[in-house]
């Protein structure tokens, strides 16, 4: 038997549930819109040539972005190698070892760094690497992206490590296991998926960054042979082609954006698949 109050309560509950579902849809909607729009605009220029050929000179039909695709992967790899160890170890320090005051300052610093506009990181990379090395290079591009990754990885690592119940640390301590082994074998393993997710998010973020690599990696129309030379990357290529006055290049920019989003998606899916299997001690 429903009283009037019960009806009102059910109505309220139903309204709030509907609101939550609506907001959840709103969150995913841009991704769906962007993806389908890119698909519509880019798929016509997407071809085998596009992912295997070098760019053709402006005005010529055809050609592709093979060097930019590989370049983006290379820049992500460089950023990963330079940025993740620092962010990871810093996060471990914050969660497992650091004391209150120092931690508060490091955390504050990391949060400020997370808010620094990416174009500033381009300038930092320019001053720290491009100028001393005497030219644009893949290395300085990777460095600029690593700067962006460090605070992101640091904060997510800290957050997932703090979520590991202290009971596991206590249980391991009570077995007479040294502290660094507890951190490495118990705490990090328990938080492994969360850490990987954090690294992936950071990688996905830097994969699409344009400004920092514009000032450091520069972009290129040929294959890159050395990390000391300029390198092409999808965001830069998309940027140049989108501004181009040749319709063929405009279309290729759409295809490039589509490839970039698929790349990030594939990376995310692969790593998730690999980490879904249990890790052994």
């Amino acid at each position: 038997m429903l009283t009037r109050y019960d009806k009102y309560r059910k109505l309220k509950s139903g309204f709030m549930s509907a609101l939550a579902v609506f907001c959840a849809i709103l969150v995913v909607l841009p991704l769906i819109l962007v993806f389908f729009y890119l698909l519509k605009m880019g798929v016509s220029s997407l071809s085998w040539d596009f992912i295997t050929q070098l760019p053709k000179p402006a005005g010529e039909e055809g050609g592709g972005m093979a060097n930019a695709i590989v370049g983006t992967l290379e820049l992500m790899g460089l950023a990963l190698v330079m940025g993740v160890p620092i962010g990871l170890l810093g996060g471990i320090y914050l969660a497992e070892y650091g004391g209150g005051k120092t931690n508060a300052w490091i955390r504050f610093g990391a949060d400020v760094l997370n808010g620094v506009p990416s174009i500033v990181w381009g300038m930092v990379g320019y001053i720290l690497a491009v100028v001393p090395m005497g030219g644009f290079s893949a290395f300085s591009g990777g460095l600029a992206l690593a700067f962006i990754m460090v605070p992101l990885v640091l904060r997510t690592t800290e957050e997932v490590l703090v979520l590991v119940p202290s009971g596991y640390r206590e249980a391991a301590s009570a077995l007479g296991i040294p502290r660094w082994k507890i951190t490495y074998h118990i705490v990090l393993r328990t938080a492994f998926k969360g850490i990987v997710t954090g690294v992936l998010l950071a990688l996905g973020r830097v994969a699409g960054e344009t400004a920092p690599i514009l000032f450091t990696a520069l972009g290129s129309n040929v294959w890159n042979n050395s990390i000391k030379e300029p390198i092409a990357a999808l965001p830069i290529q998309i940027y140049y082609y989108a501004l181009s006055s040749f319709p063929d290049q405009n279309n290729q920019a759409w295809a490039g954006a589509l490839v970039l989003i698929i790349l990030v998606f594939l990376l995310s899916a692969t790593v998730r698949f690999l980490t879904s299997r249990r890790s052994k001690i």
Partner: protein
Amino acid sequence: MNPVMTSKSFAMSDTAKSASAPVPATPPESSIPAPAPAAAKSEVAFDIQDLSVFYGSHQAIKNVNLKIPAMSVTAIIGPSGCGKSTALRALNRMHELSPGARHTGKILMKGEDLYGPGIDPTVVRRRVGMIFQKSNPFPTLTIAENVLVGLRLNGVRDKAFLSRRLEESLKMAALWDEVKDHLNRPGTGLSGGQQQRLCIARALAVRPEILLMDEPCSALDPIATAKVEELIHALKSEYTVVIVTHNMQQAARVSENTAFFYMGSLIEFGPTEQIFMNPKNPQTEAYVSGRFG
């Protein structure tokens, strides 16, 4: 003095020095390597001398003197917040993991000062195992890996030895028959009672001399509780067990001796029967008869 120290000694290099320090009331076995579990009934496992423990400015334990006998079960009872868990944790230096913890006084384990200079708390904890209120098998490890993790992470690699120790430990924890066919399943897939016995097997696998239990049954159903209590009974022929419990019937069932703590002080210590049937202190009497706490 015995110059040959086994690896069971706390201070690997410092033992001779600490053993020759003028410590009164220390029996001569202080310099003897940790004895085999077949020790005399009357032996003292822990000699707690004037122990106080502080967390910051809060004093959790106040000047406790207590001799915990070896090869038997000692229960620590008392109302919430009386310091019984802290007292237990002081026995393997686990309380030091809490920020701001410090202590005064001494705890001698078979004559050796647990807090002596140069004594590594990690080594203390290898000799004094601990079971917690909430069972906590490591979620990334299988049943077998959970049991062996203490040995493996302390550098034991001998496969034959490990598989023997795995079976022994699970049998001692009365879990072998239930899990022997799926040792490679995750430890967290077991039931609550099984998980707690897995944790006991994990603690036993490193062969501690003493086992501390911090309300090991408070999260278990009556049947699982009965199993763990049976296990405690079986363990006391080889181990010294110190158990903190909220459940007075449990203390009465499993222990030989009982210590009653109140407001951080040890109020009364004696044979369990006497504490429950004929307490000397009126506060003890009030607590065990259920008038407060």
